[in-house]
């Protein structure tokens, strides 16, 4: 009886593998299909023709890619500048209404951003931030702040207090003790926060549309326009370009996000 247990196990893993890789490979097929008509199970013509169109100077994909990556990098920098002090305070220092402060970072994700971004776009338009990289970076930062603050808080909470206290009692100032002792130990968790923020920014669609477009063209917008136009190949190729950084980070995330940090997120 026990020897037959591999059958349901293999069946379960197989179904799961199909549900995860089936959709992805369907997208891959479309990215390299020149011609594909119903009811053919596979494309009848393969090639890179559509890749040339996407990455031609008039295709706009290079510009969108450059915009998307620079916005994401700037968003990471701004998020960490805000989250490292906040996370340290939430993890280590006595704060009134701590639970309330933690939950308030959830606000930007707790409301359909659409109407909010419309109002932001109006204000940004008046002060000249609409249609600029800076405007999009601000919107992306606020949107991803819940992840970076919560993960930074968990990362600092997982660092033992002893080292910092020893440094302080040997005469190190608070900033010195923080920079030399606590920050390096919290670094893997903070890197994980940076990764999440980077991908959130790459993924972000609504804010980019209202605050960025049409002056700042971003990849998700390029993808959406192609999909709305019914062009499966161009949409799939753009999707594939967005997919690559995601998969790379996916393979690396557990190196940064250890169990002792994970179990403290949101507390």
């Amino acid at each position, binding site marked *: 009886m026990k020897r037959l247990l591999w059958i349901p196990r293999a069946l379960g893993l197989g179904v799961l593998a199909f549900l995860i890789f089936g959709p992805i490979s369907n997208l891959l097929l479309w990215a390299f299909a020149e011609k594909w008509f119903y009811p053919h199970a596979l494309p009848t013509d393969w090639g890179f023709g559509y890749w040339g169109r996407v990455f031609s100077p008039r295709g706009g994909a290079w510009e969108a890619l450059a915009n998307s990556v620079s916005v994401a990098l700037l968003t990471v920098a701004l998020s960490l500048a805000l989250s490292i002090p906040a996370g340290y305070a939430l993890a280590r220092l006595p704060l009134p209404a701590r639970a309330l402060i933690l939950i308030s970072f959830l606000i930007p994700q707790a409301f359909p951003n659409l*109407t909010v971004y419309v109002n932001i776009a109006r204000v940004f338009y008046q002060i000249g931030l609409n249609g600029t990289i800076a405007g999009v970076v601000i919107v992306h930062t606020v949107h991803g702040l819940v992840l970076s603050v919560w993960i930074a808080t968990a990362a600092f909470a997982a660092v033992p207090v002893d080292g910092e206290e020893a440094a302080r009692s040997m005469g190190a100032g608070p900033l010195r003790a923080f920079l030399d002792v606590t920050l390096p130990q919290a670094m893997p968790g903070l890197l994980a926060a940076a990764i999440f923020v980077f991908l959130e920014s790459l993924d972000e669609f609504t804010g980019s549309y209202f605050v960025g477009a049409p002056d700042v063209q971003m990849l998700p917008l390029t993808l*959406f326009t192609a999909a709305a136009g019914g062009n499966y190949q161009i949409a799939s190729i753009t999707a594939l370009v967005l997919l690559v950084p995601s998969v790379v980070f996916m393979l690396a995330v557990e190196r940064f996000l250890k169990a002792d940090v994970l179990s403290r997120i949101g507390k």
Partner: protein
Amino acid sequence: MNATLPSDGPRPGPFGSGQPAPTAMQTAPHHPPFRRRAALPLAGLALVAPALLSVLVFFVLPLAASVEGAFRTPEGRGLANFVKLAELYRADILFTLLIVGLSTLLTGLIATAIAGYLTLGQNPRAVAILRWLYRWPLFIPFVVTAQIMRTFLAKSGMLNASLSTLGLADAATLGSWLDWRGIVLAFVWKQTPFVTLLLAGAMAALDRGTIEAARNLGASRFRVLWDIVLPQAARTLMTGLILSFVTMMSVLSVPLMINAQSPTMITADIAFRINAYGDYGVANALGVVSLLMTGAFAILYLRLGLRERR
């Protein structure tokens, strides 16, 4: 200087506030920094303030403006937008609640099953494969997920092709899956790895002793998962599900790209009201409705959290 290091006397608490008086007196002459600890609540607030202020200025204020806008009508303040909303979008509100609720439930169930197997599974190879497998959709953007599902769930997509190849269904009778099922599948596909990652991390940090003891006493793996492991990781599960819930309530690309016909989700309706009619009143009112839904869910979380702290 080293000679004056404090011995292992009573330690200050982790948050430094309940400092015992004798220790403070002994160390005070050599360690003036400890006097600054009295001012720490202010220091903490000052460190949190920039992050908190950016949420306030760039989200809460525009949010307040949109709530205010929900009650603004050509004839002054009133409920006209909500009356119109109830006429036009009652079905969509229910549709949204059902889709997001079902997706959250399925995400929780599948994440629990996967994380549970990762924690309690006895076949090392199967655990390793599963650990490698489940995370793939984790960081795939929602726009990409929507496009992926558009190809996979289409009438001529790979799902239908595989079902008919396996003889599980007749190709002629299979239609497109791109309706409410498509939205739920896209949400569950994208959110399950995220919740699983959090949950498996929490489960891995648990004390193995009780788990082994229960197993030795003959408890089945399902019972161990349900009675011992899951209750201890329940807070992490709830945190993950809340983040998923609010994410699904905010995503515009998935409903727009998978199922934009009626009935559809509130997010698609808001975009439509603004793009097609420039009707900010009803759009803002729809925003208020989804705020109420997520607010109810957040309150549930806060109450669970408070009950546990007592």
